[in-house]
């Protein structure tokens, strides 16, 4: 089943977007993409419980004109199957800040220097709500 897709979000630099969803009990991995469109993704956020050889790891990447960049791995993994998780993203021309459940934060470079986020897609979790400040 295809996941939620939002177009024309118009999230401005420095503004925060919160994504709240239920992680299914049998979740192997879930993905949140933010960027310009499905081919140009500033941050591909992939939380892997058990997927492609990764266990409890967040794998981040970017995609420009359908071409993937270099992966970055985070070892903090504050997600549990069957729980509600909220992740906040804010972006400026140089980086994306990601705030995880429990408050841990990390950064990912904004390799395309995209200042306005217009695209969000979510796969693998059941979205409960979104907020934009």
């Amino acid at each position, binding site marked *: *089943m*295809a*996941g*939620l*897709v*939002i*177009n*024309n*979000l*118009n999230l401005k630099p420095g503004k925060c977007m919160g994504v*709240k969803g239920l992680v299914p009990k049998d979740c192997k991995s879930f993905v949140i993409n933010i960027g310009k469109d499905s081919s140009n993704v500033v941050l591909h956020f992939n939380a892997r419980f058990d997927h492609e050889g990764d266990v409890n790891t967040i794998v981040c990447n970017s995609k420009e004109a359908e071409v993937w960049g270099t992966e970055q791995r985070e070892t903090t993994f504050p997600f549990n199957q069957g729980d509600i998780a909220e992740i906040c993203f804010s972006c400026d021309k140089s980086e994306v800040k990601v705030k995880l459940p429990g408050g841990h934060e990390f950064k990912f470079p904004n390799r395309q220097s995209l200042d306005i986020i217009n695209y969000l897609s979510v796969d693998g979790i*059941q*979205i*409960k*709500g*979104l*907020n*934009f*400040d």
Partner: protein
Amino acid sequence: MSKFEVHNLEVHKGQTVKIKGQISGHAQSFCINLGKSASDVGLHFNPRFSEGTIVCNSKKSNSWDSEERHKHMCFSKGSEVKFSIELHGDKFQVKLPDGHQISFANRHKYEKITYMSVEGDFKVTSFKYD
């Protein structure tokens, strides 16, 4: 402004969508559409400030059905407001910011809403469903 569009939503019968947003200071009108796609809409909810009216309608294969008009504008330009819309088998129940409710027949008997869009002078700040 381009429209805020959500695809692959999963709002089932009995569930409620809550939308919060900011009405712009110079607002003329805005609309919230709920349905299957941009061309198949079960509820087109369209407050028009110039007419002091909320116009509701539905659309099937891109043709509009008949309008229903409500003279109940309980919100003003420049304010932040919340709407909740509940999907029933026979109707959409819209709760306005002052608690007043408008119901609109679920003319196409949608059991599930998979598409939402917001257009016009309204900026979505939060959106939830359960």
